[in-house]
């Protein structure tokens, strides 16, 4: 446990805070990369997921993509992109978006798919237009599952962003790789602890969000057995 004490001491050493390589700026960098990626992936995946969920056409694509991305070794994709695009942030961002899209797509699609068909028929029967059905029925009812997909994407992205520095992308992985090169195990372990704490904080935030977005009508009328299981997949 001495190793852990050293690592904790490393984290709380004021020399390791402040400046461009400080723990604080690396945390901000890590979070910024992760949120940017999830933002881009959401803009791409949600409309497509909703389209597939609403029309019921193209389910196979969602299944195939989710399966393929689970088998895809992230590290390989990241390195391949880095060799072609050069060292820096570009390769990690593209690789991370590729990883995040399938989870969010599956969440958006599954959210629509899980809506009871009778509810949609009822909505149509009371005269809702197709757009009203999408915006007033399917989207609210599908939110918990979409949030589950986003939670899974965030988890995956925060984990994989740790690898970004292997190709010069910065983030909290920089402590791990710097420590690895200089044989400084305290620094490696310290970087690891910070990433783990960050990942767990985000997991807790998103699991809470997932519970909060269950529409009031759903919680009021029945036991809240809305599917809230996350779309899980991890490649890093």
């Amino acid at each position, binding site marked *: 446990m001495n190793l852990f004490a050293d690592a904790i001491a490393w984290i709380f050493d004021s020399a390791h805070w402040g400046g461009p390589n400080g723990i604080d700026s690396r945390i901000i960098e890590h979070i910024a990369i992760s949120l940017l990626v999830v933002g881009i992936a959401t803009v791409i995946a949600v409309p497509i997921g909703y389209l597939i969920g609403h029309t019921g056409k193209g*389910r196979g694509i969602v299944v195939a993509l989710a399966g393929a991305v689970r088998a895809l070794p992230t590290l*390989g994709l990241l390195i391949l992109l880095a060799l072609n695009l050069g060292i820096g942030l570009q390769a990690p961002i593209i690789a991370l978006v590729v990883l995040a899209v399938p989870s969010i797509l599956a969440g958006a699609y599954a959210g629509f798919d899980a809506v009871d068909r009778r509810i949609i028929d009822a909505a149509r029967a009371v005269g809702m237009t197709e757009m009203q059905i999408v915006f007033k029925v399917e989207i609210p009812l599908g939110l918990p599952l979409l949030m589950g997909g986003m939670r899974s994407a965030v988890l995956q992205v925060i*984990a994989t962003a*740790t690898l970004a520095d292997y190709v010069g992308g910065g983030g909290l992985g920089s402590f*791990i790789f710097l420590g690895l090169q200089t044989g400084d195990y305290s620094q490696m372990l310290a970087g690891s602890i910070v990433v783990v704490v960050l990942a767990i904080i985000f997991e807790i935030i998103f699991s809470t969000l997932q519970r909060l977005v269950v529409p009031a009508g759903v919680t009021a009328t029945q036991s809240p057995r809305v599917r809230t299981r996350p779309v899980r997949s991890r490649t890093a």
Partner: protein
Amino acid sequence: MNWITNNLELIGDRTLQHLAIALPPILLSFVLAIPLGWLANRFASTRGLVLTIAGLLYAIPSLPLFIALAAILGTAQRDPINVGVALTLYGLALMVRSAADGFSSVDSDVAQSATAMGFSTAGRFWKVDLPLAGPVLLAGLRVVAVSTISLTTVGAVLGIQSLGSLFTDGFARNIQAEIWAGIIITMGLALILDFVIVQLGRVVMPWTRVATTRAKKRDRTAVRAVLS
């Protein structure tokens, strides 16, 4: 492509090292998850606890976990054991949830009939609960197998040899073919293992072979499996 034909032996070695790291955790997490999943499902109080721990465990990024495990286990930093233990923990985190879902998918009328017919708790577990939970367990095992094969590559950045070493080596020496070879073989291994598991499932659970599904229904089940 020249690189690949010139280095078949290296690729073979890395593939074997990869399987030696990845296969035991897949097996181990499956075996360990069944009693835990049963326990989680049996008592209302344990379910939340077991599943919450599994969820948090799964949220831990892999590279930091490999590093921390070296300190926790007192092993060397490049010991493949660290990766093996981490992969077992991830597999367990996924599989416990599948197992709990599998056991809760057993129709309670069926379970009660079994008890009424005089099955002991153990007898019911082996002859009723476990076989009926089988398809869900199988779906979980497929997810675990594929993601474990893919995750094994991450250890390469710490110098733990696997197919991931083809990525790090290809990066250091700027050989694209080597990286492509690593990606394709890793995905190929995952596909083959997935196929083997599906076939094993058909042998062990012959009743699932009956074609019950239209394409639409099958796709839906597949999405559910993906969501596990």
